[in-house]
């Protein structure tokens, strides 16, 4: 134990103590080493200022703006709850909410299953694993706008791959059909993000102690049993973190959809963030757009808090007791 007291009495520590007023003394004492060594809270000021200016102030601005009428040009006038009433009775908002939920749930399911499988595969030591891993990883390197433009052209019924290879089943108007457009988008979005998530799972799988598997083998567990009884349970926290990333990411997803369909055809891909954008910067209905913005914000916060609670990530006890 290297228990240093050299920082005692120095100003940085004092300021931390001051900031930590109200924390029970015993806990403070327990954290003593850490506290004494930690840098002054003042180092956090630049980050806090940036966070305040670019996150907190705009958020307050959007909430205030949702109570106002503004077309981007004229005077800003008070509208009270008018925008809220208008937006909450607008079928397009509910259409957007529904599409966002579908996009979120389906792409979460698809991405999680694929990422776990790929992650487990990439963490192993099979033949060609390293080469294949490079290919799996590729989509992560492309800009999403480039991906969107490429897929839009690849899926073009007249000029796309269907035509090029003479495959009639690929030569359909996927993005122009209200029934298929959203599903195509979900596939493309998943294709973009699966590499990132499988990377997370790969890392997590590699951290599972081999002794667990050895013990299981001795007990006679097969590959399947090992996967379901050791690998999956050990991935619990990665799963929670990763799902939060995916779900909050999908709730606010925008760029690929904007470039590939712009919300069409016939609003079949007009997810909430796109709905907000169109209201704000095509209709210049800043009040209405702000209402949608607040809805997205609340949805995001509630869902990520809920995920934290449900998965017990906020406690994060060790899963390796006895290892």
């Amino acid at each position, binding site marked *: 134990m290297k228990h240093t007291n050299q920082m005692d009495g120095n100003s940085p520590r004092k300021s931390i103590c001051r900031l930590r007023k109200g924390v029970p003394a015993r806990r403070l004492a327990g954290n003593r080493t850490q506290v004494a060594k930690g840098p002054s809270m003042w180092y956090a000021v630049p980050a806090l200022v940036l966070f305040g200016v670019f996150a907190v102030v*705009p958020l307050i601005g959007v909430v205030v703006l949702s109570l106002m009428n*503004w077309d981007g040009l004229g005077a800003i006038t008070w509208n009270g709850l008018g925008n809220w009433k208008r937006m909450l009775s607008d079928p397009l908002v509910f259409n957007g909410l529904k599409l966002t939920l579908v996009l979120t749930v389906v792409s979460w399911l698809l991405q999680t299953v694929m990422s776990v499988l790929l992650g487990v595969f990439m963490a192993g030591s099979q033949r060609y694993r390293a080469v294949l891993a490079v290919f799996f990883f590729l989509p992560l390197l492309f800009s999403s706008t480039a991906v969107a433009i490429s897929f839009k052209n690849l899926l073009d019924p007249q000029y796309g791959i269907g035509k090029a290879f003479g495959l009639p089943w690929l030569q359909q108007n996927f993005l122009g059909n209200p029934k298929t457009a959203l599903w195509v988008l979900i596939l493309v979005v998943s294709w973009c993000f699966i590499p990132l998530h499988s990377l997370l799972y790969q890392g997590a799988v590699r951290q599972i102690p081999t002794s667990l598997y050895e013990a299981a083998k001795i007990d006679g567990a097969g590959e399947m049993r090992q996967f379901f009884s050791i690998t999956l349970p050990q991935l619990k926290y990665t799963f929670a973190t990763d799902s939060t990333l995916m779900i909050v990411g999908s709730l606010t997803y925008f*760029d690929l959809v904007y470039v590939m369909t712009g919300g*069409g*055809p*016939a609003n079949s891909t007009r997810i909430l963030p796109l709905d907000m*954008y169109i209201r704000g910067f*095509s209709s*210049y*209905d800043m009040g209405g757009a702000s209402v949608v913005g607040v809805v997205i914000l609340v949805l995001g916060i509630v869902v990520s808090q809920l995920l934290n609670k449900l998965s017990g990530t906020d406690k994060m006890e060790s899963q390796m007791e006895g290892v």
Partner: protein
Amino acid sequence: MKSFRRIAVLALSAAMLTGTAACGASTSSVAASGDEATMWGISDSNFAPTKQAVERWNSRHADQRIDTEYFANDSYKKKIRTSVGAGNAPTLIYGWGGATLREYVKSNQITDLTSDLESTVKSKVFDSVAQAGYVDGKLYAVPTQGVQPVVLYVNKKVLTDAGVNEVPKTWDDLLDAVMKIKASGKTPIALAGGSQWPYLMWAAYLVDRIGGPEVFNNVVEGKKGAWSDPSVKKAMGMIQDLVKAGAFGNVYTSMTADDRKDISMVVNGGAGMELMGSWAFPDFKSLSKDFSTSQFAFAPFPVVEGGKGDSKDLTGNLTNYWSVSAKARSKQQKSAVAFLKNTTYDDTMVSDLLKIGAVPPVKNIDSKVKAADGKMGFYSWVYQSMANTPAFRLSWDQSLPTDQAEAVLNNLEQVFLMSQTPDQFVEKMNATIR
């Protein structure tokens, strides 16, 4: 209030950035300091004559220089409005007339140019185009580019192969041609529905041909129930007849106009016709020499039997306009006005415009237009139709306030996709009139 507005723009943009990593409307401000007038231009070939005019002006008037900055068309459109709203506009504001111009005037963002420039405009520009620069009888916007009416482009070979020997003149001719071309295995009409705005051209022309220009004028004036005019419902029904007849093929819902797939479809013989603005003509001309020399034809929008509208009525984009920012310093405003007074459709400007294929709405230049024309006769036709038109309807999306324009685009798309009936369209659009 002004500073709050600026914060509000920033807030919403930042919210878009943090929330959705969105693109577009940034609000980098242009310093209003300095005495040089400022101008934001468009970085495409259509703007080249203006760019050259500014360069000529700057080389001769060192004391009244104009500082220019260039943007892509779509980013300019998104940027200019928020900039004007936040008081950061350039001295010379480039616009499309219509509802945005009225809103600029209403919020006192641009100056009255009547005393300085009315004589210049009246002496040169056709009334049908000059008129759109006026709000409440005062001149606020000075025309500056070529006119852009919407025309029916035709691939003659596709039509004759299908047994259609004449370019359709009436709606029945058109339906007949659609049936025959479809039977020959081609797409009768190319339509870039993925971009939404091409839908407007069909609606605008049909409503005008059936009910005359008053129908949509009533909508622009915001009269209650203006969309209930029977001609609107009839036009929507006719559009759905076309869709049901397979006139637009089955890929129009995803085809976009910005990559010119629609135009190449006509040029390559995949489709027989397309309704498009005159701005597409240079593409029709340049994509294939074979096409432009032997297969190209064009026609006005067909007449609807029994309709009230004049067959010479046009719709489309009139032209672009310059306005002068009311927030600019007086020295900047003076430079801008002097620039407009001297360069608006001067001889060099007119010939530069004709060179790039734009037909300026300027009186008495018949011979110049004819000289620029070559064999195809397109520019002369555009010039004559503009000179003789009783009503030149500015595109619906430019005529209406932004929220109503967005609603028209959205609901019209649903009419074209058959997910909304004509009655539902009328009802939804009436609800947007305040």
